[in-house]
């Protein structure tokens, strides 16, 4: 009776930048950590990202962004999650961010920001500590 919850993660790149090397590396690392990773690649709109997260019932959304458009796309994603009563999905970001933006992103609910140079092990450890697979559907 293998009723072990498996962590499901969405890795996506919002916006117009096509540099998906980092996203691929993290997807691979998460796979090796035993997670099920839904990988949707580049050029995702916030709407697409949230729609995928809902249909795939993920516990975590990892957003990779290098284009500098995070102050547009991240808040929009958080807004859409709220609209769909899906604020329980943890959202993290990875990429290049001006230092002054990081507190702002955390304020809107992004749980953690990983900047260049972060060790993969540290990210995986963070996820294991901070993200728990969600509970069963109400059978009531």
């Amino acid at each position, binding site marked *: 009776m293998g*009723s*072990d919850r*498996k962590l499901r993660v969405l890795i996506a790149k919002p916006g117009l930048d096509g540099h998906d090397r980092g996203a691929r590396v993290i997807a691979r690392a998460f796979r*090796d950590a035993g997670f099920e990773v839904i*990988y949707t690649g580049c050029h995702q709109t916030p709407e*697409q990202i949230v729609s995928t997260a809902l249909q795939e019932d993920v516990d975590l959304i990892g957003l990779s962004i290098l284009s500098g458009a995070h102050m547009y796309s991240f808040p929009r994603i958080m807004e859409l999650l709220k609209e769909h009563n*899906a604020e329980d999905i943890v959202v993290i970001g990875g990429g290049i961010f001006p230092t002054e933006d990081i507190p702002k992103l955390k304020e809107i609910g992004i749980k953690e920001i990983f900047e260049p140079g972060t060790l993969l092990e540290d990210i995986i450890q963070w996820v294991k500590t901070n993200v728990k*697979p969600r509970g069963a559907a109400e059978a*009531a």
Partner: protein
Amino acid sequence: MEIVQKILDGDIRAVARLMRDIDDEIPSAKEVLKELYPYTGKAYVIGFTGSPGVGKSTLVDRLVDKLRAVGKTVGILAIDPTSPFTGGAILGDRIRMQRHFLDSGVFIRSLATRGHFGGLTRSTHDMIDVLDAMGKDIIIVETVGVGQDEIEIAHTAHTTVLVTVPGMGDEVQAIKAGIMEIGDIFVVNKSDREGSRKTIRELRNLVELGLRRHKTEGPPWEPPIIETVASKNKGIDELYEAIMKHKKYLFDNKKTKLERVLFDRAKLHFVGILRDQLFNTVLKRARERGEDLDELVAKIVHRDVDPYTLANKLVERELGDSK
């Protein structure tokens, strides 16, 4: 149950969560499935199978365009492999289906094989039932990229589409039993590539041989061979027409063909459930006696006992006479 009504209403979060519970083998999911069962059996199931990289996801993406254009709602189950070493998976079939992410008439779910062989997941039949109950007209199951023997899809889908590409192997590959026998429709994708003509000729020969051997009741079905270039949207109308023709064939021959498909599917589903339940029951009772699966296996490794005797002993002890 409130959740049953939510599924029937097509509530995305409820559907997504139930699917998760099914895959994670949460006991309450079975109770929901029991309640949903009367509402299933309406959807038409199309299977796409073939080796990795032949273009299954892209074909599915294009076919969905066509199905949406004629007003059908679609559920998609896209299966990718689980790593046997870490238990993790990268599920990437959605990348090819992005155009449908915002269409409320399309629900896409990525599934990982989680150690199941056969091309599907252990949960596929239940997942089909959920999509069916939520009201999807057509359900497309894209198998994991298969080799030669993953034929469960043929006992699951109404219509099985076997996708290949030019230059995938010589005549000997085509003669072998297994995967090449299950196609109701053959697709040669990337047919603008060299060697396309030869592949089509080989498939045609195979189809003719197959016709002579399949001696089932009712009029025979001659699997059509469709040439497509999915990335350029070529041949998709022909593929759609072929699927509709096969559907008509099944419904024109209800007794001999359609009911056979439904019987095969129900049998595969039921036997799987029964097997899991028996297995789990025996192991659970053994555990209650303090016998752990790994310890039992260790006995076999040490040559203390052979696997047949041990299995027999366990089944007999826990379930009575096993003869």
